[in-house]
C-alpha cells in the first residue's frame, strides 16, 4: 500500500481527536482502517492513550475542600470589613477635597494677610499654599498603603 495513504491516515487520525473530521475524510479513514492493520493498531494506541488520560483517577487529599472553604471564608470575613473602612476613607477624602476647593479663595487671602503682616517671602507663602493642598491626600494615601500592608501581612500569616 502507498506510504502516502498511511501518512494521510495518521494525519486524519490525529485530526479526528483534536478538531474533528469532515464526513468525507471520516468515511475514507474508516475504510482505510478496515483494511490496514498497522494504521488500525495506531488508531487503537491513540484510543488507549486517550482512554487512559480520561479515566486516570486522582485521590484528592482528605479535607482539602473543607480546609479551602474555611480559608476562603476567613479571607472573606477579613476583607469584608475593608470596604466599610475604605468607604469612610474615600468619604473623608472627598469632603476634604471639596472643602479645599471652596475654601481656596479664603485660604489664599489668609496667606496673603500673613505675608503682609509678617513680611514673609512670596516663595514661603506659595510653598505653604501648596502644602495646604497636598498634605491631606498624601496622608490619605499613606493610610491606604498602611492598611494594604497590614492586610498582606495578615494573609501571609494565614
Amino acid at each position, binding site marked *: 500500500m502507498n506510504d502516502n495513504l498511511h501518512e494521510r491516515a495518521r494525519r486524519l487520525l490525529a485530526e479526528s481527536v483534536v478538531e474533528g473530521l469532515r464526513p468525507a475524510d471520516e468515511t475514507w479513514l474508516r475504510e482505510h482502517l478496515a483494511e490496514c492493520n498497522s494504521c488500525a493498531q495506531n488508531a487503537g494506541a491513540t484510543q488507549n492513550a486517550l482512554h487512559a488520560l480520561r479515566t*486516570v483517577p486522582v485521590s484528592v487529599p482528605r479535607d482539602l475542600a473543607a480546609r479551602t472553604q474555611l*480559608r476562603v471564608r476567613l479571607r472573606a470575613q477579613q476583607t469584608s470589613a475593608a470596604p466599610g473602612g475604605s468607604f469612610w476613607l474615600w468619604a473623608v477624602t472627598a469632603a476634604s477635597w471639596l472643602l479645599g476647593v471652596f475654601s481656596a479663595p479664603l485660604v489664599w487671602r489668609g496667606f496673603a494677610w500673613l505675608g503682609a503682616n509678617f513680611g514673609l517671602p512670596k516663595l514661603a507663602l506659595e510653598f505653604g499654599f501648596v502644602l495646604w493642598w497636598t498634605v491631606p491626600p498624601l496622608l490619605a494615601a499613606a493610610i491606604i498603603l498602611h492598611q494594604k500592608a497590614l492586610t498582606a501581612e495578615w494573609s501571609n500569616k494565614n
Partner: protein
Amino acid sequence: MTDDTHALAIGLRQRDPDLLDRLIEQYQQRLYRYLLFLTGNPSLAEDLFQETWIRVLERGSQYNGKSKFDSWLFAIARNLVIDASRRKKISSLEELGDPESNTPYDPPDERASSVLQLLVSRENEQSVQLSLLKIPPYYREVLLLRFSEELGLEEIAAVLATPISTVKSRLYRGLAALKTAMTEGAA
C-alpha cells in the same frame, strides 16, 4: 450569556460564601488533578488549590459570565502555577509557556514520580500518570485540558492566552509524545 453563568457572575461579584463552598466541592477533583499533573508535586498542588480559590474570591468581580467558569478557573490556576514556578524555581515548569525553546525536557526524578504515583489509583496499570510526567509540561497541560477536562479548543486558548493554532499544534505534538511515552513505558 447563559442563566447559569450569569447567576454565577452575580454570586461571585457578591462574594457569596455559600456559592464558593459549592464551587470548591464541585471542582475539587478537576482542579486538583490539573494542578497535580501540572506541578507533579502534591504539596504544591494543595497550596495552589487553596490559592486559586482565594483568587476566585478576590477577583470574582472580574468574571463577567460570558465565558465558561471552567476556563476562567483554570486560567487563574495556571497563572498561579507559573508564578510559583518562577518563585520556587521549579525547573520542570519553567518552560510552561515556551515550547519552542530548544532546551530538551528533563523529566522529574524517580522519587517525584513515585510520590505522585501514590496519589493515583493502582488500578490504572497503564501508568498513564507516569507517562504524562515524561512529556513536557506545555504538552501535558493541553492534553489534560482537552481530553481530561474536555474543554473546547477556544476555551483552552482562553486559558493559555494563546491563539487556537498554537493550541492545535501543541495538541498534535503532545498526543504523539504521549503515545511514544506510553509505548516506551509498556516496553
